[in-house]
């Protein structure tokens, strides 16, 4: 588990820990989902940098070239 996904994060407003939860994304008319840390109360999400620069960037490129 990477540093940022292992990072314990607290929602500033709700004061509860973010928990992995299925979250949907959209890009260029396509929809998909993955588990990312999310506040169980207000739904605040956190996308770690390695996810944004890694798998998400790969999928973005694949869809652009589709």
């Amino acid at each position, binding site marked *: 588990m990477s540093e940022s996904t292992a*990072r*314990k*994060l*607290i*929602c*500033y*407003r709700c004061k509860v820990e*973010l928990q992995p939860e299925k*979250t*949907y*994304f*959209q*890009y*260029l008319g396509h*929809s998909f*989902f993955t588990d990312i*840390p999310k*506040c169980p109360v207000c739904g*605040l*999400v*956190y*996308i770690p*940098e390695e996810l*944004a*620069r890694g798998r*998400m*960037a790969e*999928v*973005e490129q694949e*869809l*652009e*070239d*589709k």
Partner: protein
Amino acid sequence: MRDFKETLKNCLREEPPFCSCACPFGLDVRDLISRLQRGSFNSAYRLFQNTVGFPAIVAQVCHRPCAAACIRKEKDEAVLLGKLEQAAVAYAANRRPNQYQLPAKGKKIAIIGAGPGGLACALRLTARKYEVVLYEKTNRIGGCLWDLLLPEQFLAEFELQLMYERYELKLNCEINDLATLTADAIYIATGPEGNRFGFCGAAGASRQDGIFLGGGEQPADAIATGLRMAGVIEAYLKTGLMRQPETRKTTRLVMDAAAIPFAPPAVTDGPLTRDQAVQEAGRCLKCQCDACLKHCDLMRYYGKSPGRIEEEVEVTIHPGTLDGNGTVATRLIASCNHCDVCKNVCPQGIDTGAFLLQSQRSMQEKGAMPWPFHDFWLRDLEFSNGADCALVRPAAPGERSSYFFFPGCRLGGSDPRYVTESYRYLLSVEPETAIFTGCCGAPALWAGDQALLQSTIEQIRRQWLDLGRPIAVFACVSCRNIFRQFLPEIESRMLYQVMEQHGFQPPVTAAETARLAVFDPCQSEDDPELHRAVRVLTEKAGCRIADEAELPLCCGWGGQVSIANPPYFAQVVRDRAARSELPYLTYCANCRDVFAGAGKPAYHLLDLLFALNRHTGREAAYRRAPTASESRQNRRLLKKTLLHEFFKEEAPMSENRLPLRLSPQTAEKLQRDLILLEDVEAVIRHCEASGEKALDESGLCFGHLQIGQMTFWVAYRPTADGFCLENAYCHRMSLGGE
């Protein structure tokens, strides 16, 4: 789009080379040479054999019209194709012909004359399993070859190539009357002096059904005719139609002999060894029109000719499936630098760039072009033409302007003084010069956003009319060309030509005795006067010009392709930066900053002319490129400076900047991802105002905000005097939806 397909009919890419057209057999010399260059003698032999029938004979007796046609002879000496053919024959491991198991056709052809032409015709027809009877008036086969070669050379070859075929040979059998023959077709191959049975004319189908004439002054011609006529005879037997053989191909190919590197043959006497053959094959240019492929970065990068690009773009814009699968060229379309090089170098003037721009528009209109490819630059256009930067003012209030200076948005973004000093100079020679800062609309043009381009152009037109229809003075060739295309009513000059015409004398310092390579911007191809003026000014500044380029090329910036295709952009920049080891002298702010960003020493001409960025002799060459955030800040500062210095107005900076500290590494990261500080500030403001943020154990805050369609993430800490940014990144996907 259809127009381009039509235009491509003029493309010379598929034109055959001169040697193939001169060859009696129409030999695919390019293919043969490619095989020899790889040292594939077996493969070369197979191609040669399939084309000429009797390779060992043709390699010896051919009269080589290819040599006369070879463009190499303009430079040194024609490629020794004969020796290469002989090498293919000599070094082929297996010279046997292919054996074809086909059913007999049940048709009979009488061939009169068992010379090379008759035997060549027999070779093809027997391979196709026609019944062939050869009538020869003498007691031997081979005809004229007896006078040219040793019998063992050609008799063995006939035997080898016909080893799997059956035919009837009647020696000492002179035919005087065709009516005595019983056959479905007759081929008269009696040689130049032979009996033509009353038929005259060239080789081909006679006026009488079923009777065909051979011909050829040279033995190679006779063999080639025999092979060709076998096809004509077969067509007649199948259809009953007396067609003439296809005429020999001609070519529209154009090659520049002057550009051929000098490389005479290493060996001219005797047969070639394998290595010598490979070396000699290497002398062949494999003549093919490759002007666009050679000069256009995009075509070279993708290895695709205009024809191939057209096909791929067509299926991308009109995909064959409902879900749009097969849109193979989306990124390619968005990667064109629109530098006009393809059109400028094409002997036919084919403009693939214009086609790609049209394709970009089509994709944009369909909503099929991924928005991130141009989003950043469209936002930049909006910023340049917004209240923070745009300034349109006559030199004196209410006065009609004779000229207006349109520096373009990137010049002031690079260094505001490029604009202020140029404007100061222009006012000194023409006091009625208005200032007109902003963006010409190039990002909208390149993004294919017609509506935005139109509104930008219309806005410029209205402001120009308000100024009293003055003449434009440009510092940027791209801006000038956009005006020429969309605002043709506006007369224009280039700043550097104005300066040269007014005899501008730049300051000369000892440091400026450097040798420089002028990097003319793309789209300046048709402006030799501009090129001249730039060189005059450069030399006046005490610099010596060297390493002149063949033609103006794009630095990589054109089309704003860096987001759509980062590896391609990087490749173009690398290639351009490597053209000369000397520092570059540019007169396009984008070229200057692109090269500086790649670590290539580069001056803007205005650095020399106004002694800017010259703290030490070479420092200007290494002045780093401004980041995207700095470029914006420079444009804001430019407006403020112009108002202050030329109009005595104090304009407060309209922005409300957040006190933000960040390390140089973080700043570099932001630049790499084109994340603006103002975007970062917007995210932090949002997080702080709404409380929508997460904290880790150390108190580091994480938050995000979607600005436009891009989602930005920041990691920051509040400090006593503001905020400290530790990280920022972004993604194109948006959160939400199912």
